[in-house]
């Protein structure tokens, strides 16, 4: 118990003094996860909206697959990206393995299904309300798609936040494709795993506290967004 309170005191000291190692790790974590979520948003929102608005053979299967991919274990995504980027893999020549870029790719793959599946649901619900009016004005699914995304913007923000929550919290994928190399690919979650196994709890605890605050902020923002949306703007 004494060891724990000592670790907690050190952790708070690290946070209070903006410890250089700590700041470096947090900055890389945010860079990787925010980049991944930005990419996943660019891919996932139009993809989800297109799936919501278009009817094609095999659509049911695609939707089931998309929902299933939402729950994909990060280690599996990590393994797949590892195989693709390793020297012998199809993209091996690019030399991306064990780099932040590889981590961004892995997290993007992890987050796209979440954003796309949630966006699909949201836009499909909205389309049942809008379809007749849109078609009456001469807009088919293709023309209506941008307006559908815009009109669902507040609810879609919560989908993006859910994606960020997933990216910033996962450890399996970034561990495998990043390798947890000090000063290069060490992020918050991989550091916590490593330092805890080493018995060095102070840094792990400090990072854990930051992750908790981050998670609270993301969910607070999502909650505020839903309340705003309920007011009638969205």
């Amino acid at each position, binding site marked *: 118990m004494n060891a724990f309170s000592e670790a907690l005191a050190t952790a708070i000291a690290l946070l209070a003094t903006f410890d250089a190692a700590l700041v470096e790790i947090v900055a890389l974590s945010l860079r990787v996860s925010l980049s991944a979520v930005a990419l996943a948003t660019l891919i996932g929102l139009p993809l989800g909206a297109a799936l919501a608005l278009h009817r094609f053979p095999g659509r049911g299967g695609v939707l089931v697959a998309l929902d299933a991919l939402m729950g994909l274990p990060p280690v599996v995504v990590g393994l797949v990206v590892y195989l693709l980027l390793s020297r012998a893999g199809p993209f091996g020549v690019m030399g991306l393995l064990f780099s932040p870029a590889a981590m961004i790719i892995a997290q993007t793959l992890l987050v796209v299904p979440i954003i796309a599946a949630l966006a699909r649901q949201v836009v499909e619900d909205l389309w049942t*309300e*809008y379809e*007749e*009016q849109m*078609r*009456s*004005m*001469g*807009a088919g699914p293709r*023309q209506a798609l941008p*307006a559908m995304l*815009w*009109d669902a*913007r507040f609810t879609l923000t919560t989908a993006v936040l859910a994606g960020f929550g997933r990216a910033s919290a996962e450890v399996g994928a970034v561990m495998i494709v990043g390798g947890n190399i000090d000063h290069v690919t060490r992020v918050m979650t991989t550091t916590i795993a490593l330092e805890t196994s080493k018995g060095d709890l102070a840094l792990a605890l400090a990072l854990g506290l930051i992750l908790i605050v981050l998670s609270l902020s993301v969910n607070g923002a999502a909650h505020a967004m839903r309340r705003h949306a309920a007011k*009638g*703007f*969205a």
Partner: protein
Amino acid sequence: MTATATIDITGPAPPAATPPSILPLVVEDMSFAIDGRRLIDGVSLTLEAGPRTVILGPNGAGKSLLLRLCHGLLTPTGGRVTWHGAGAADTRQHQAMVFQKPVLLRRSARANVDYALKLKKIARDRRRAITDDVMARTGLAAVAETPARLLSGGEQQKLALARAWALKPQVLFLDEPTSHLDPAATAAVEAIVEDMRGDGTRIVMTTHDLGQARRMADHVAFLHKGRLLETTPAESFFERPKSGEAAAFLRGELRW
């Protein structure tokens, strides 16, 4: 918004040339069935340019379906719907519909009108002039920047009409546009429809409100259980309905 060098105070530019009419609309032996149930059954009807047609009938008669089939939102399962006018090559551009419950985009009132014009690929300056014009004519200028979803029910339906008006439709379909509105808002909506007719728009509307039908109909099409029982000038319909069902409906005694 960027500063513009000139401000348009002249209102919308006059149309370059009146496009050829898409009317008449000819409906031949049209049916619409879902799971074998005939909801519209062998309806034949011709809508010429000019007078206002009110489709009357009790709940469940198929009034809304008939309107959607004419507007092209639904495809008939039997028979044909054809526009026969000289401009019939491009019918979608020249008709509009206002629904019972207005569907408004989640943006400002004027942006709703602007969006409909943008779909028609109208240039920005023209869009602004047309939007200002219809907002003023429908009495919505003061709430133009208000989010459409925060408007009152009456204002929302007026905005739906403004959006339709901006498109300068040759034919406007209205599906019970006042059934959710109070008498004042109903009167305002009827006045706007009347103004649109003055602008040359052919009005086709459904209602189950006999008072409204008397006020607004030149012709009445009476629908009962998916069948068109009569199409007659309004006066003779209200004085001497031909079918027993219509007479019962006017007495408020129709059972279905």
